[in-house]
Every structure is written in C-alpha cells, then in structure tokens.
C-alpha cells in the first residue's frame, strides 16, 4: 500500500468517519491528521472499539455486587469472587461477520480472541462455550457455515486444550447469510494475581510477543485497501488465519511470566491490533506511551506505518514489563520458542507517540482515542411490524390430528434435536474437570482441590425478542439462570453478546434498548450483575436485520459437588412433578415455527418474582437431596421437556406415564412454551418434604405422573394424547442432526 498524498472527503468517508468527527479530530490535534493518524482515529472511534452507540444504553446494566471483583468495562473481562481466594474471569464475544465470510477461520479466530482476553488477566482458561445461530439447515450454505464454524471452534479449542463444554445451536431463516457466532471463555485466577491491562510506570518496557504482523485483517478494520490508490494490487486478504499452537505457547508463557512477577500489565492485540492495545493500556494507566514500529516483527515486506498500526494479525500480545526485568521476561519467552521484541516504553504525560525509526508516524493525545471518543444518543422508535406480528389468532392455527407424529416432528426439529454431532467434535473433557458433559441444562466444571464447581449456560431467544424485545431480554437472563439452577448451582453473574442490526436505524435501536432494559431488569431481580460482554451491530442480510438476539452467558457456583443435579429421570417409580407455573403460550414457540411456519404472537410472560422463588425452591430441594432430576421447560414446551427427561441419559433410557389436568387445546398443552417451570423427579417418600419447601417459597407443585416403562405416555384427563416408545424417541432425536451431513 502507498500513502495517499492528500486526505480528501472520500478518504474520510471510507474510513467511516463523519464530517463532524473529522472536524473534531482536527480540533484535538490542532492540525490536519496524517494518513496513519486518520487510520488510528477511524478504528478507535469505530463502533467496535468505542461503543459510541451502545454506551449510554449499556449503563442500564447493573454491574455491581458483593462478589464482583472487576466490573464490566474496567478490564478485558470481568471477574467474580468464587471463594477460597479464587476469582472466575469470563466473557463472551462475537465473530459474526468473519464467520459469514470464512466460517472455519472466522469462528476459530473468534475463539482465539476471547481466550486471549481471559489469560491476559492472568487467569487459566478452563472452559469454552459457543452460542451459534444459522439459517435453515435445509439450505446448503447454512450447512456449509455450520460445518465450518463448528470445525473452526473445534480446531482452536481442541488444539489449545481448553474444553468446549457446552453451547447453543439454533436455526432460523432470519440468520440466513448472517450467522451469529458467539464464544464464551471462563478462566480461574487467584484473586491477588489478577493482571491489569494497563501501562504504568515511566520507563517500563513495552514488549510485542507472538506472531509477526502481516496485512491480514486490514480490510476488517474499516475498508479494503484497494479503494485507496489507483495501483492495482493482488487482492489483499481481510481473512485472518488462526494459529492455536502459537496461542498455546503464549498462554503458557504469559502465565509463567505473571508467576515471576515481572509484568506490569498486558493486553492482547484484538480488534484494531497494535493501536488499541497500546492506546487502551496507556489510557487505563493514565500514562503516555511511545513505540517504534520499525521494531515490530513483520511477515510481509514494504508495510507502511498505517498497515502496521491497523493490522489484525492473530496471536499477538502486548506485555508491559518492569524496567530492569527485561532479560528475565525474555528468558521465559525463549523457553516457549516465542519471539518477543521490545518496541517502546511507558512515558509520563498523555501522548501516544508512534515512531518509525527516526520519523514520527503519529502523535495523538491518548484520551482523545479512548474516554473522549464520540458518544451518540441514537434515535429510537417502536418498530411498525410489531402490532401486526403480535396478534395471534389461534383459530388460524389448525389443531393437528395426529399428535404422535407431530411430536416426532418436533423432536426432529433442528432446534430440538441432540446437538451431539456438534459437541462430539469438541474436546469437552480435556482438563479432567468437566463433571457434567454437554447435553444437560448447564455444563459443570469442578475446581480441583475443592468441593466446588462452576456451572455455565448460554441462552437467548431471538424469536421472543423479535416479538417482544423487553420480555425476550428478561427471559434470556431468567432462562440462563434457571438452567444453572437445575444442575444445583447458584447464579452469580452474567456476560453477554448483543447481536443486532444497524444502530442508526431507529427501529433497530429501539429493539436494542428494550432488550437491554429487559435484561437489566432481570439481572437486578435475580442478583446476577453483568461483568462484561460485547455488542455486535450491523448484523444484516439482504432481507433486513436479523432478529434481535441477545445471548446471555450465566455463571453459577456449586458449593458441594456431591449435590450435582442432572436433568434425566433415574428411578422407576419416581414421581414426575412440575415445579412452578407460568402461562403457556404458542407465541414465538418452536411449534408454531416448525409445524405451522409462523413467527407470531406474544411470547410467554415472565414474572420475575415467581421466577426467583422458583429458582430458590429448586436449589433448596437439590441441596437437601430431595429430588433426583431437574430440567427446565423451554423450547418445545412440556412434551419435549418430558421427552428429554426420558432420553438424555443414553446409557439408561427411562419411560414415564404422565396425566395432565388441563383444559386448553392439546397443542397448547403439549408444545406451548412457558417460563418459570421445571420438571423434577423424586421418590414419593420425599414428596411431603418437598411440598413444605414449595409452600414456604409460595410456588406451586403439581404431580404429573410416574417414571417407568418403555414408553412415554402423555394423557389429558386420562385421554391419551401421545404414546411413543422411548427407543424410537431417542433414535429420532439423536440422529436427526447428523443425518444432514451424511452422504
């Protein structure tokens, strides 16, 4: 690339900067910016780095709590106290657009990025989760994307040796062409060993460690390079290639480095690479920073300062080392065959100074790029589509005659089927901590040397949010918490990924605000503060924006792993009970979508007080050892939840005989979705004790039937609606996803 001679209107525009923003840049600098500076401003003031549209809305999230050690936004990830002197560090991030272009590398580099965020805080990553959304599985491109994305997450997580312990896989035509790929990473660190992402202490040395810098990802920053000059280039790749092996070396070396106490701070070079890592660490440390980019290791020849500063090559880190400890640091890097180059130092003052050998390439006040970046209060209006889609007249929905075959059809819906084709491609056991493998409501990883374990769940429902963003946002949090409760964990805190369309569209921004408000409300009520997350706007395809899709990653704590609870039925003769009651609705249900091809209606209403009481009751019952299984009612309604209780344990399928005393339409009874409900099983001798807890917490408990036999039978007032052999249910559910990939 060549430097353009002059910065003109077009150049400013392709950098995604408005005229006002450009005026502001001139004001800050007191002069015209040069090309490199223009690039630096454009990436630091981009939505991705500055959160210029979302910041004011995100302030609605509760971020404080007794156990919150690092609050959202303070560092690369938040941290929660989990006792015994340990903190859990966790965060979720999206890599939607890169995955749409190159699914394998896009998803893999997404995993790589979030893993770096965790270990740069000094935490050893112990689990990954992936929350994935694609268009219809019947479409070849969607299958290609699914295969590539799963392959990419697997390639990265397996190689680096962090178990991918769970996730979500959801299909809906709204995601056609714009898949959502959100990856969560959880790490553990001694509380007093948390490392800050800050550059402090005049004269401390800035090290560049890891892969060399190429032109990859340049286009991803704001535009494609060829629009800049008339010269024709070979097509420059925007696609970043991952190197999990390099990251494994970085992971081990940095943790060793932290142990040796030579580190002042560190940050990975993620979005906006060298630029954001240097500027953000300096900003947090209230320092200046000076680097010489002629010292930056490069993969390609002839790179200009602009390219070096904006490259998004993967697996690179910035480490600030104490003055005088450079040799000690170098030794550790060398042990791990890593190339570490000192490229600059922390300075007093507030200037971000970039030199290229003897020349000054850029000089900008640090805070102008961070805390003083522009923030906008975007306009919002209630979308017009809402009134139309919320009206659901059940008389337009024909009641199927053969409920048995509809039941099987539901079980083989891509959104209901077993996701083992996905999670068996992930090493979910490495680390020998995964005590609840994928397939349950939440994954559980133990903490060796203690009785404790951490539970994780990812949840979100774009359909609900499309129909009612506020309720949908609330539900995402509540469901994630409920999932964690079902395995016996107390919900502690959340991270999240907010996937939306274009924020300058007032209707999209309304969806965004309402979702956040709903989530915030639920977080407050359930006492699960937000420790961090990520906003992904511009998720659009030719048909328009994707359904508003906030994804919640919930962290829960199990005090004693002897009281781990699982979702499947265990003993013949156990009572099957429904804990809690929520109003059933077909609005936004999987049944309506999969069987009737409709996305309509009012999603289930969530009463947060009831929800809280329900979760408390369930946890108490688990801790007292009163129940043998717990599984929350979600996608597909009661019938699907019951089926899952019967077949989730492949080693030991269990039938059940259920009799429901309800008066609604049969499809509503079976497949209507509701909040605040958990199916539990218990021995009849525990029923009275259970009832006592239920009364104390003012929730409800209904006995629905008994575990046993080779069939799942569901009756309404003794009249059979469904009766199926569990073997058949199992086979249908288990093989439906892989059948799309068999040849």
């Amino acid at each position, binding site marked *: 690339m060549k430097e353009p001679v002059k910065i003109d209107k077009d150049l400013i525009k392709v950098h995604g900067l408005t005229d006002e923003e450009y005026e502001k840049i001139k004001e800050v600098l007191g002069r015209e910016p040069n090309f490199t500076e223009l690039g630096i401003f454009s990436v630091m003031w981009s939505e991705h780095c500055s959160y210029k549209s979302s910041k004011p809305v995100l302030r609605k999230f509760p971020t404080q709590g007794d156990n919150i050690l690092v609050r959202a936004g303070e560092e690369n990830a938040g941290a929660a106290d989990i006792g015994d002197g340990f903190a859990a560090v966790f965060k979720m991030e999206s890599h939607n657009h890169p995955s749409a272009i190159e699914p394998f590398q896009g998803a893999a580099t997404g995993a790589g990025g979030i893993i770096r965020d965790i270990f740069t805080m000094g935490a050893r990553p112990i689990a990954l989760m992936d929350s994935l959304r694609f268009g219809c599985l019947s479409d070849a491109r969607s299958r290609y994307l699914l295969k590539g994305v799963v392959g990419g997450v697997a390639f990265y997580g397996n190689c680096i040796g962090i178990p991918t312990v769970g996730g979500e896989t959801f299909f809906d035509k709204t995601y056609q062409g714009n898949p959502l790929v959100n990856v969560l990473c959880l790490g553990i660190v001694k509380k007093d060993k948390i490392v800050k992402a800050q550059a402090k202490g005049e004269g401390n040395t800035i090290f560049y460690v890891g892969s060399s810098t*190429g032109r990859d990802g340049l286009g991803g920053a704001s535009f494609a390079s060829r629009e800049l000059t008339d010269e024709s280039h*070979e097509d420059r*790749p925007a696609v970043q*290639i991952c*190197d999990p092996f390099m990251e494994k070396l970085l992971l081990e070396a940095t943790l060793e480095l932290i142990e040796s106490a030579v580190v002042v701070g560190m940050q990975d070079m993620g979005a906006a690479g060298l630029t954001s890592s240097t500027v953000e660490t300096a900003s947090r440390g209230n320092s200046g920073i000076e680097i010489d980019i002629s010292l930056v290791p490069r993969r*390609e020849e002839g790179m200009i300062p602009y390219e070096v500063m904006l490259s998004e090559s993967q697996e690179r880190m910035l480490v600030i080392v104490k003055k005088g400890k450079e040799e000690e640091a170098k030794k550790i890097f060398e042990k791990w065959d890593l190339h570490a180059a000192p490229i600059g130092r922390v300075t007093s003052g507030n200037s971000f100074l970039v030199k290229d050998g003897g020349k000054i390439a850029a000089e900008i006040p640090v805070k102008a790029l961070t805390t003083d970046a522009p923030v906008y209060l975007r306009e919002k209006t209630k979308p017009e589509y809402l009134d139309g889609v919320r009206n659901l007249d059940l008389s337009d929905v024909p009641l199927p005659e053969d409920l048995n075959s509809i039941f099987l059809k539901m079980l083989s819906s891509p959104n209901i089927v077993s996701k083992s084709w996905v999670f068996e491609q992930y090493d979910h056991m490495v680390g020998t901590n995964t005590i609840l493998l994928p397939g349950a409501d939440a994954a559980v990883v133990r903490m060796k040397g203690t009785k404790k374990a951490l539970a994780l769940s990812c949840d979100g429902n774009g359909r609900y949010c499309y129909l009612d963003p506020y309720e949908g946002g609330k539900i995402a949090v509540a469901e994630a918490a409920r999932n964690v409760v079902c395995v016996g964990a107390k919900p502690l805190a959340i991270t999240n990924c907010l996937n939306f369309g274009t924020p300058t569209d007032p209707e999209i921004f309304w969806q965004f605000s309402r979702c956040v408000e709903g989530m915030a409300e639920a977080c407050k009520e359930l006492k699960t503060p937000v420790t961090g997350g990520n906003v992904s706007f511009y998720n659009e395809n030719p048909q328009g924006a994707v359904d508003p899709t906030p994804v919640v990653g919930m962290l829960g704590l199990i005090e004693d792993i002897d009281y781990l609870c699982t979702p499947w039925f265990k003993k013949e003769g156990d009572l099957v009970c429904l804990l809690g009651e929520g109003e059933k609705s077909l609005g936004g249900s999987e049944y309506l979508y999969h069987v009737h091809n409709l996305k309509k209606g009012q999603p289930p209403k969530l009463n947060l007080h009831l929800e809280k009481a329900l979760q408390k009751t369930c946890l108490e019952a688990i801790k007292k050892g009163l129940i043998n299984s717990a599984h929350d009612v979600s996608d597909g309604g009661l019938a699907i939840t019951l089926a899952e209780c019967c077949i989730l344990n492949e080693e030991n399928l269990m039938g059940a005989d259920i009799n429901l005393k309800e008066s609604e339409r049969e499809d509503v009874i079976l497949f209507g979705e509701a909040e605040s409900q958990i199916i539990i099983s218990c021995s009849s001798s525990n029923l009275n004790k259970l009832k006592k807890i239920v009364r104390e917490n003012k929730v409800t408990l209904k006995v629905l039937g008994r575990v046993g036999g080779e069939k799942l039978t569901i009756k309404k007032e003794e009249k059979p609606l469904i009766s199926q052999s569990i073997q058949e249910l199992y086979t249908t559910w288990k093989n439906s996803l892989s059948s799309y990939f068999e040849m």
Partner: protein
Amino acid sequence: MFKVKIYINLKEGVADPQGATIKHALDSIGYQKIGKVKTGKYLQLELDMHDKNKAREQIEDMCQKILVNPVIENYEYQIEEIK
C-alpha cells in the same frame, strides 16, 4: 481420459502458521539455509472425458465451487491425457 493434478496454495499475504512452524522445525533440527516454507494441498483426479476444453471448464468450475476455498486459496492445475 484425463489425469488432473491440482495444486492449492494459500493466497499471497495469507498467514501460513503451519509453514512457519515447519520452517522453525527444520531450522532447529539443523538443516541449513531454509528460506520460506509454504504449505498447500495436492489433489489428483481422473476425468473420464475426451474433450480437453470441456475438461478444463469442468475443472475450473469444480475448483471454484468446492475444491478450493477462494477466500483464502489459489490454485493451479495440470491436465494430462491418459489411455
């Protein structure tokens, strides 16, 4: 009948960590003077066709549609008639 050999490479500028690691290994085993190492794929296939031009057309099409990932890869091929 044709025998086709297809050579698939990473595009110029696309990082090749595998190549870099192999180079590093060769260096440290003690091989001298190793410059850049690039990794790629090598496919061989038989085409039961007679018209070379048609064969070429089909090969191009197959490469662009499935054999090659055009986002990050380039390809070249050789085609040879066999009896």
